[in-house]
């Protein structure tokens, strides 16, 4: 590995180390009154990491490839349901179910991609078709027996490493962080590869890319498959964390929105964009909920969505390249 190669990965390794060291700060954060307890901290962090992973998936096709999907719930949900159903109905081990969930998510991505890209759907047409697919999956999952129908699927609570259920909340935090870390490194690898260069070329100008020998259909199909597989892992982790899925969680529009909002807010088509965006969105959302609760004495449902909306408007108006763009512009001066 040359020094130039190492320099490209150094910021990622530093960020991973910093995140991994975060549990050390938990006692301090709790005593400072920022979190009610260690569990509150870990629940929030794990949720942020799961959303980050889903957003990292979206960012591969949407950020690097310019194929804006509004339906990444189709992949998240497939991963979540596969993880739940394989364990409860087929007795598959949780660790063995995870790669299957990932592969099934990727398969759904490949099929939707094949149908949409072969029909030469781009831009808002592609977005609408993916949205429609996710909705079809949601309705089907709500109606078919194998997914548990409207009642959803409950994964029995059996604490144990073999079941991917941990007593210590830090363990699941590190599991989720491990996946996010791998995808961070994978994204940098992608940026520095031929496939990554061709993917960005497709985003910038498809005709020009074709003239340079880029098989745009193949590139887009690979991207959506990889994108879907990563988001499916996020779904599978969600199942393992909350041990319950139903159609509105797995295939609901909420996750499609989170998956695309985080990279847009954080910095689209960048390695750190999804992570920064997820931290900003969910962190501010939770902060708003807490503040409103203490100010009015009761929870105001949906206030986090108001924060999302405000943040999105502010970012689009003042930082079109996302928060990471702001950081870079500030650091450059």
């Amino acid at each position, binding site marked *: 590995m040359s020094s130039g190669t190492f320099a490209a990965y150094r910021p990622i390794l530093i960020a991973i180390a910093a995140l991994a060291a975060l549990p050390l700060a938990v006692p301090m954060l709790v005593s400072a009154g920022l979190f009610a307890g260690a569990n509150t901290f870990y629940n929030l962090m794990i949720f942020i990491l799961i959303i980050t992973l889903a957003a990292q998936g979206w960012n591969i096709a949407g950020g690097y490839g310019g194929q804006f999907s509004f339906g990444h719930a189709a992949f998240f949900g497939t991963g979540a349901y596969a993880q739940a159903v394989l364990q409860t109905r087929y007795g598959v081990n949780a660790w063995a179910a995870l790669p299957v969930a990932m592969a099934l998510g990727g398969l759904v991505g490949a099929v939707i991609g094949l149908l949409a890209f072969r029909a030469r759907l781009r831009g808002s047409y592609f977005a609408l078709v993916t949205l429609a697919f996710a909705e079809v999956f949601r309705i089907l999952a709500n109606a078919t027996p194998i997914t548990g129908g409207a009642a959803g699927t409950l994964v029995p609570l059996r604490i144990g490493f073999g079941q991917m259920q941990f007593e210590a909340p830090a363990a699941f935090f590190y599991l989720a962080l491990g996946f996010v870390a791998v995808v961070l490194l994978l994204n940098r690898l992608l940026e*520095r*590869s*031929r496939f990554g*260069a*061709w993917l*960005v*070329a497709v*985003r*910038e*100008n498809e*005709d*020009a*890319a*074709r*003239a*340079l*020998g*880029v*098989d*745009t259909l193949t590139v887009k199909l690979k991207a959506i498959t990889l994108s879907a597989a990563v988001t499916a892992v996020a779904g599978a982790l969600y199942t393992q964390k909350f041990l319950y899925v139903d159609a509105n969680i797995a295939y609901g529009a909420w996750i499609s929105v989170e998956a695309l909002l985080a990279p847009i807010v954080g910095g689209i*088509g960048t390695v750190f964009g999804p992570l920064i965006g997820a931290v900003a969105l969910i962190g501010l959302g939770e902060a708003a909920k807490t503040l409103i609760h203490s100010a009015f004495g009761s929870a105001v449902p949906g206030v986090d969505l108001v924060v999302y909306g405000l943040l999105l408007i502010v970012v689009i108006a003042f930082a079109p390249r996302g928060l990471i763009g702001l950081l870079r512009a500030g650091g450059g001066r």
Partner: protein
Amino acid sequence: MLEVHSLTKRFGGLVAVSDVSLTVPEGSITGLIGPNGAGKTTLFTLVSGFQTPSAGRVLFCGEDITGRTPERLAVLGIARTFQIVQPFAGLSVLENIAVGAYLRFPHRADAMAHAGAVAERVGLTDLGRPAASLTVAGRKRLELARALATGPRLVLLDEVLAGLNPSEIRDIIPVIRAIRDAGVTILMIEHVMQAVMSLCEHVHVLANGRLIAAGTPAEVVGNPAVVEAYLGHGAAGRLQKGAAHG
């Protein structure tokens, strides 16, 4: 190297290219000229695979390539530039060229090195800046560099000189000649006659979708049919009369 046989393209009732046949000999710089709307760019889109012809055939080194996609043609060794430049605006100049270089060099280090070498050939410098910041002349050079980076045997240049001022044109003519001297055959659409006269060995003239003349630049410019295509019916006769009286 390139043979076009009776190529025709219809858009509904409009025949944009009608029964055009021409050849481009290996190692030549061949020109394609004609008034606006003559069908030159349409002919390019047919040869480069962006559109499929309604009739006729295209042969490249004896192989029938009619209807092949642009990406497959690029692999075979046919590259094109666009009349309206199409830089990847979000990428740096070097990264733009590397997209083309990756076709023959799958590894990043090789592709980047090749892209740098190609940039030097076309006279591009300051390769780290965003492609969007280039001047018109810089963008034209970038089009050329990206096409060359794919390692073509034949390049189709669609008005690479349009929009440039006379000194920029003077600068880029030797670059085009050097590309040919390095063994790349060139077919170019061009309006700048100064460049056509100095670069092309052979010129084909299109008007209203038909080939109306072919020959050396000097022959073609003297051809009455060509003069009329540019200046209107009867223009050649009036010019001759004017010359006789003057």
